[in-house]
């Protein structure tokens, strides 16, 4: 849901591969913030999709969210879109409602799972989050057996912390700039896309000698005809 740039959102809808995809928004990581829900419907409510959202904080208020059997609703979706916010809050709330199991089931059934920031980190085995004091890793849902670090270009402290954690034995994974996205089929990385030229993703892993090796990945800029090659090569 980037402002004034619908490419990433359009790309997500294309992944669903159906005419009018059912897309369900999970704004849990923001505490189901009203403004975020409104933004989702502004973006996806135009008729090209069948949008809905699940609120785990407003279940008794009739705020337009899905009521009744949330699991059945999620399993019927073509796309589940997870918003950003607090990863710890997201995972804690999901687990309390059993959504961790539901989302795994949805994934196994072929529902496209996507999200940004906390909504990206949650799918991985380990996620790097930044609070005050040392950065640390948090166990995610583990659908993808790697680690993930987001806002890779925006927060140099995070990048340093991620590399340090990988050096100390954290499972290898991916650092991703704002505006870039990883596409996995099953647990295999299929490609890296970006909504504009510039943003990159990196493969970050511990080499044989214990050194951290960071490799920029080839990025396909959405809306361009030919995959760009600017991102290729070791950084």
């Amino acid at each position: 849901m980037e402002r004034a740039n619908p490419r990433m959102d359009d790309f997500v809808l294309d992944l669903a591969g159906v005419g009018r995809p059912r897309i369900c928004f999970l704004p849990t990581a923001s505490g189901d913030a009203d403004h975020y829900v409104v933004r989702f419907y502004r973006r996806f409510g135009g008729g090209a999709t069948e949008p809905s959202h699940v609120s785990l904080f407003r279940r008794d208020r009739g705020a337009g969210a899905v009521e009744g059997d949330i699991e059945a609703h999620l399993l019927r979706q073509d796309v589940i879109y997870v918003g950003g916010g607090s990863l710890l809050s997201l995972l804690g709330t999901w687990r309390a409602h059993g959504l961790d199991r539901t989302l795994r089931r949805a994934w196994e059934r072929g529902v496209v799972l996507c999200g940004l920031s906390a909504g990206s980190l949650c799918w991985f085995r380990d996620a790097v989050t930044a609070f005050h004091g040392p950065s640390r890793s948090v166990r995610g849902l583990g659908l993808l057996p790697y680690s993930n670090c987001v806002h890779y270009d925006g927060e140099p402290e995070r990048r340093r912390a991620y590399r340090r954690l990988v050096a100390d034995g954290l499972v290898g994974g991916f650092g991703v700039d704002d505006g870039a996205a990883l596409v996995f089929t099953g647990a295999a990385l299929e490609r890296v896309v970006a909504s504009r030229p510039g943003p990159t993703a990196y493969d970050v892993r511990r080499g044989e000698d214990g050194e951290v090796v960071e490799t920029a990945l080839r990025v396909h800029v959405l809306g361009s005809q030919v995959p760009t090659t600017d991102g290729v090569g070791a950084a």
Partner: protein
Amino acid sequence: MSPGPILCLGGGGFTMEAGLPLLDAYALDLARTRSPRLLFLPTAGGDPADQIGRFERVFGSLPCRPRVLSLFHRADLEEPLEDVVLAQDVIYVGGGSMVNLLALWHAHGLPDLLREAHRRGTVLAGLSAGAMCWMDGGVTRSQGAPSVVDGLGLVGGSLSVHAHRDPERGRALRAAIAAGRLPGGWTADDHAGLLFVDGRLRECVAGRPDAKVHRIDRGPDGTLVERELPVRRLGPQERWGWAADEPGPSDRGGLRDELRLVRRMRAARMASGPGRRRRPAR
């Protein structure tokens, strides 16, 4: 140092009514300090902007040091969570989803900090989910229909809230007590509060007439024994009771009344005056 008192509201308080509610003034009074540090935890509602805005409007103009702790914006904290939680005179927990509240607290390591704050004498207060969380257990509508959920257990016994308005919850509580799923406990109406000191019920108070509290126990034969408890109706004289500690001339009562009137008018104006509202700091 003795553990702090715990005030559990069946509903009401600043998130549900205008002005400075009597029950909230009573909660501040429990701190027994002139300018209490007051921390609001809107966690159960997902840190909703309306609760935070009301908190800032009501308490921003009163003689206290209000602060909001958002677990959804923890990265904005400038000091460790522990330092924030353990530095308070009053911790006030808003309503919302009790299941989410406890899940989030556990995810962020709050239960141990809150226990420690309680041990050190901090007043713990809250309404609805923010009241039941202190007990052994309560009845939540986090999933729609009423269901039983465990609390932190700082107070022995169970609690169900919004009793008059939502009788289904009370039925769920009674069923859980009868089945032995929850220990005996209380139902509280909106605007009724239960004050626990050293783990025992000290008194029931009410901010409005007809706010009731019932005690429910499981009898030896498994049937329920239920009785209505006496409730003390709070009056305006309960507000800012710590002024009574002030040394002063013998006619200080008149002065105190006048100060009280000014404060009340100011509180009412801050809470309801259009165009004079502070903007929520978000």
